[in-house]
């Protein structure tokens, strides 16, 4: 394996609770209507202008980014991009006139002609908000050398939706909160956070059960706060949630029933022949709790993070090249992948 590790295959700072961060910047070109008001020819023109700026002669980015027109992707490949959090579901729903700039380690994904002409996204493992912001801002500066962005001194960066006016920045964190979920405080916490201009919502899976205790914490205020202020608000709150979760985990992991659940979950993942998506997510969440608390030794959080991404339906069948797989074959593939990646011997303490 000489391929660089993808961002979601690593474990980052505060990785026991903080799975990943994403910083998104919305930018629009001057002189072109926003994507919602562009016809296909107009969108194509915007694509060309941006492609020229990023990948044209003398560009520093030529070797960094792959240019991916959305219409060139198979359905599975497109859905897999959503599962890897690289694009929004809306982005692939209407492929015409849209393209993605994607870095090799998939940590930078620039959506072109989504809601705005340009949406820079930087994704990183762990709680690396400032680093992700720096990368996004540098890319923003570099693009700005060749492209003029719509900006107003009072309203900031001008965006298609007035909600994003100002910095155009949305920063979000994926947090693994099994102990807080177990103690039933998520709902209350979420409503308190909304008063502070932050939102906490389920980040993964579909339906209410298959969330894997993964939550997305993000800023909502874009006007009147600088990027640094918004980021440090978010980080302060995230650190409080981290402390709360760690405290709750410590108590939770001392309970025999929790230890049993964690150990059994690992047993199923290491041995199952068929694994459904919802079940897999739930079990991975249990094992992640055990590994993060040091109860399970020999399972890396990086491995678990990548399994969270790779066991999703479209990403799972992507290597097979199949557009569709019967349910059982899909479950077989998933179980095989999980067994292979969790094959290491795992140690855990004797029960007392």
């Amino acid at each position, binding site marked *: 394996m000489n391929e660089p590790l993808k961002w979601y295959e690593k474990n980052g700072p505060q990785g026991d609770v903080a799975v990943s961060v994403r910083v998104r910047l919305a930018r*629009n070109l*001057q002189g*072109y*209507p*926003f994507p*919602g*008001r562009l016809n296909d020819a107009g969108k194509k023109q915007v694509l060309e202008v941006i492609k020229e700026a990023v990948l044209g002669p003398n560009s520093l980015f030529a070797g960094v980014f792959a240019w991916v027109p959305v219409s060139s992707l198979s359905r599975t490949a497109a859905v897999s991009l959503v599962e890897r959090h690289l694009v929004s579901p809306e982005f692939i729903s209407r492929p015409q006139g849209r393209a993605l700039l994607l870095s090799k380690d998939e940590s930078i994904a620039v959506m072109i002609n989504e809601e705005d002409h340009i949406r820079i996204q930087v994704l990183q493992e762990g709680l690396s908000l400032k680093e992700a912001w720096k990368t996004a*801002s540098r890319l*923003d*500066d570099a693009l*700005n*050398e060749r492209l*003029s*962005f*719509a*900006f*107003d*001194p*009072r*309203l*900031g960066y*001008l*965006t*298609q*939706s*007035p*909600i994003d*006016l*100002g*910095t155009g*920045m949305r920063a979000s964190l994926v947090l693994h909160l099994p102990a807080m979920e177990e103690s039933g405080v998520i709902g209350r916490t979420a409503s308190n956070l909304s008063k502070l201009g932050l939102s906490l919502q389920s980040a993964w899976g579909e339906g209410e059960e298959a969330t894997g205790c993964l939550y997305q914490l993000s800023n909502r*205020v*874009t*006007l*009147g*706060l*600088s*990027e640094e*202020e*918004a980021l440090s608000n978010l980080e302060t709150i995230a650190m409080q949630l981290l402390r709360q979760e760690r405290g709750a985990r410590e108590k939770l992991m001392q309970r025999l029933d929790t230890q049993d659940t964690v150990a059994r979950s690992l047993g199923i993942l290491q041995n199952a022949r068929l694994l459904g998506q919802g079940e897999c997510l739930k079990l991975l969440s249990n094992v992640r709790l055990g590994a993060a608390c040091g109860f399970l030794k020999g399972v890396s959080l990086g491995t678990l993070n990548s399994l969270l991404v790779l066991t999703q339906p479209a990403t799972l069948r992507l290597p097979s090249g199949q557009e569709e797989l019967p349910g059982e074959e899909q479950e077989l593939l998933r179980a095989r992948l999980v067994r292979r990646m969790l094959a290491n011997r795992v140690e855990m303490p004797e029960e007392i």
Partner: protein
Amino acid sequence: MICQHCGKNPATTRIKRIVNGQLSETAICSDCARKMGYGPLLGDWSLPLGSLLGGLMEEEAEPEIRCKGCGITFEEITRTGRVGCAQCYQTFGQRLSPMIQRIHGNTSHRGKSPAKAQLTLQPQTGMRVVPQKTSLLEEKEKQLRQAVEEQNFELAVVLRDEIKAMKEGKNHE
């Protein structure tokens, strides 16, 4: 119950507010609710975001004005919750600002500015394109510091006056 605000119509809406940790409750009629800006916010939250945003904007029956940049009408923006182009923020500035205030509060941008000198539209001068003020101001201030360092006081005086004029102009906005 009669509206506690106008004292005329039957109250249909209860407004709960927490001020300094104290919960206060007011019962008002739908007309007063709308006037006080509560109306559309109490609408159906299950609506798609677009029409919800649309609900935040006041609808007015004025002659149709189209944005010169993209041809959109205000009615279309209201319906979709999406602005057509950068110029719309100028064309419909006054009509958009209540909604922007409702979303963000009465505030202005404090974050990053484009590094490159930008051309933006000035509300006062209509559609004329003028250089962006902040970066120009920063540039002048930089020149002023340099002029002072080089003891080029004649230039410094000119720059100082220009900066003063620009700052005053800015305060009028």
